[in-house]
């Protein structure tokens, strides 16, 4: 059906390899000027592909774009599917009637994936690109390649890179687990036993986590062996990497309160950062530029969220001080765009997720259904993964902080302490 079009396209690509290179180079980060109503999400139709794996690719890309919450994927029924992609070219008038700003076609090729984006308003091809992908038999690597394509596509369409090629770390049953951001590929991580909270290195290949027995902070490459960077008497909890990945900041304490410490990620002497004077200071989270740390402290009598400079000075209360006895704010996580800190706050006896603006200190409540805690931002600074009991057991959920749309990520045994990865490279 599309053979003539793609034959012409293939001939052009083969005859002009320099053109392919040019496309590859310039298409990264290029905006496609779509026409759609301001304030709305652009409608996109993912055109069907009648080749082996075509349905799978279309389904994955459609779901990735949908879960990104920046694009409306227009569903097609069987007759529309047949009519929308006529021989030779997209059915422009039908696409326009469906409200599509763009049509997308991803075709599996022997070496990977071929992407074509059509601008419905201009009736022109807006983007052509070829991706090298591993064979579909390498399921995880192949799915990762498709997610990578989806993320670049989302960047081209909206200006913001997608988050489908990311993963979430969490603890379940005394072990660390990993799951893709779309809910696939759930698997335990080898090596980490009795872990507390875990966090990602900015490189997306290394993690740090705490264990209770023995009490320690571990740095470990995914698939590799862990090495202890801090241990001893008392508690060692809530480690995070600094944004440059050079150090790990964690909470350590014995009988006289808990303070934040910094240790080189390669090991070495630890240095105290917070002066809690007997209070508990835990859950550090860095601003994207690495200059400030948000953390939870009980120094005012009950847990609140504070910020301080990365050297431990200039401590400032971030959340508005609540003098109520039930006041309890914890688990801060700084968004990657630096604008918001997400945290959990006890409201009517249950934890709910809120965000506070760094510029205006404005609070926004994100959840109200069940008990919701331990938020962790996605790298797009828009989605959060968190733990909720709204389905009956404590499971991971993802919420779009702008629209409030939520989806369940895990099922099965209860989970805790999620951490969303940075954008990942090839697996």
């Amino acid at each position, binding site marked *: 059906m599309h053979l003539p079009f793609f034959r012409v396209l293939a001939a052009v690509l083969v005859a002009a390899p320099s053109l392919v290179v040019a496309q590859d180079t310039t298409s990264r980060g290029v905006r496609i000027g779509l026409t759609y109503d301001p304030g709305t999400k652009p409608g996109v139709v993912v055109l069907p592909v009648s080749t082996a794996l075509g349905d799978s690719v279309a389904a994955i890309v459609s779901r990735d774009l949908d879960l990104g919450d920046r694009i409306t994927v227009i569903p097609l029924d069987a007759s529309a599917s047949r009519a929308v992609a006529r021989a030779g070219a997209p059915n422009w008038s039908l696409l326009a009637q469906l409200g599509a700003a763009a049509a997308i076609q991803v075709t599996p090729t022997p070496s990977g994936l071929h992407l074509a984006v059509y601008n419905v308003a201009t009736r022109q091809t807006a983007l052509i690109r070829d991706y090298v992908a591993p064979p579909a038999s390498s399921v995880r690597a192949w799915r990762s390649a498709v997610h990578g394509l989806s993320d670049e596509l989302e960047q081209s369409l909206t200006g913001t890179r997608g988050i489908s090629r990311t993963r979430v770390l969490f603890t379940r049953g005394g072990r660390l687990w990993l799951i893709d951001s779309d809910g696939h590929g759930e698997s335990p991580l080898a090596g980490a036993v009795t872990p507390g909270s875990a966090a990602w290195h900015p490189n997306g290949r290394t993690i740090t986590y705490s264990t209770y027995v023995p009490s320690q902070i571990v740095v470990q490459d995914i698939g590799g062996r862990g090495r202890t960077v801090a241990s001893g008497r008392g508690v060692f909890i809530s480690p995070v990497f600094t944004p440059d990945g050079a150090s790990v900041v964690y909470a350590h304490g014995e009988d*006289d309160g808990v303070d934040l410490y910094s240790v080189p990620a390669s090991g070495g*002497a630890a*240095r*105290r*950062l917070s*002066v*809690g*004077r*007997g*209070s508990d200071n835990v859950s550090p989270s860095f601003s994207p*530029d690495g*200059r400030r740390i948000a953390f939870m402290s009980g*120094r*005012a*009598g009950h847990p609140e969220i504070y910020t301080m*400079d990365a*050297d*431990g*000075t*200039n*401590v*400032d*209360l971030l959340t508005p*001080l609540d003098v109520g006895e039930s006041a309890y704010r914890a688990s801060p996580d700084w968004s990657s765009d*630096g604008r918001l800190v997400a945290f959990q706050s006890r409201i009517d006896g249950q934890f709910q997720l809120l965000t506070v603006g*760094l*510029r*205006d200190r404005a609070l926004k409540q994100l959840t109200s259904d069940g008990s919701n805690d331990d938020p962790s931002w996605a790298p797009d600074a828009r989605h959060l993964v968190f733990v909720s009991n709204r389905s009956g057991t404590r499971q991971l959920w993802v919420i779009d902080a702008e629209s409030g749309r939520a989806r369940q990520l895990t099922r099965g045994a209860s989970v805790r302490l999620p951490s969303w990865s940075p954008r990942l490279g090839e697996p």
Partner: protein
Amino acid sequence: MRRLALLSAAVLALGGCVASKRDVFLLQTQLSTMQSAAARADTARSAQVAAVLNQIVQSNDSVRAVSARLAKLQSTVATDHYEMGRQILQIQELSGQSQRRLQELRASLEERSQMAAAPPVPVQGDTTRAVPSGPGPAQLFQSSLDQLRRGSARVARSGFEELLRTYPRSEDAPEAMIYIAETYAAERNQVAADSVYGLVVQRYPSSPKAATALYKHAISIRAAGRTAQARAAFERIVREYPRSDEASLAREQLKTF
């Protein structure tokens, strides 16, 4: 001669027997007396020993009681100290909050008083209100801080500098200068930031922000390899601002030299 010897022996033997009985009796009496005396002495000694033991026990009890009281006192003192620390911290937090609220309130009041002081001038055909003469120190401080929080370091710096120029004696001046340093740090201009931190310590040594500025200055010069000067700066923090958070951090830094 032989008979005489036998007789003498017999007399001696008989005589010995008679003397021995008496002696034994005497001896028994003496022994009995001695035993009684010894028993009396033992009784007295054991009484003394018992008395001494009793005294030791009493002393031990006293020592134990004193020790318990001391431990309790230490515990009370430690608890009090801990509680005092917490209370000081809470007061600091609350006063910090109040200060920030007051700062915002002052800014708001300044704005209102300016509006009130400058009533609209009735000009024919002009319906606009008169423009206030200029922002007060609290207004300048607040708007500059807002700019810094929004990430506009340069604009924020202009505002803080304007505050220092226009209101050099304002109570916000030391903090404004600290924030000027922060704007440089936000722009990764560490040399300029360090220089301004030094100025804060020089101009406002009694400000609560002086310890922060000095600590940042010390960290910066240590990173630059000026170890002796850094050490001196950390020691100065401990000496001159012993109750500050920065003093606690400086003590830890000093352990690593």
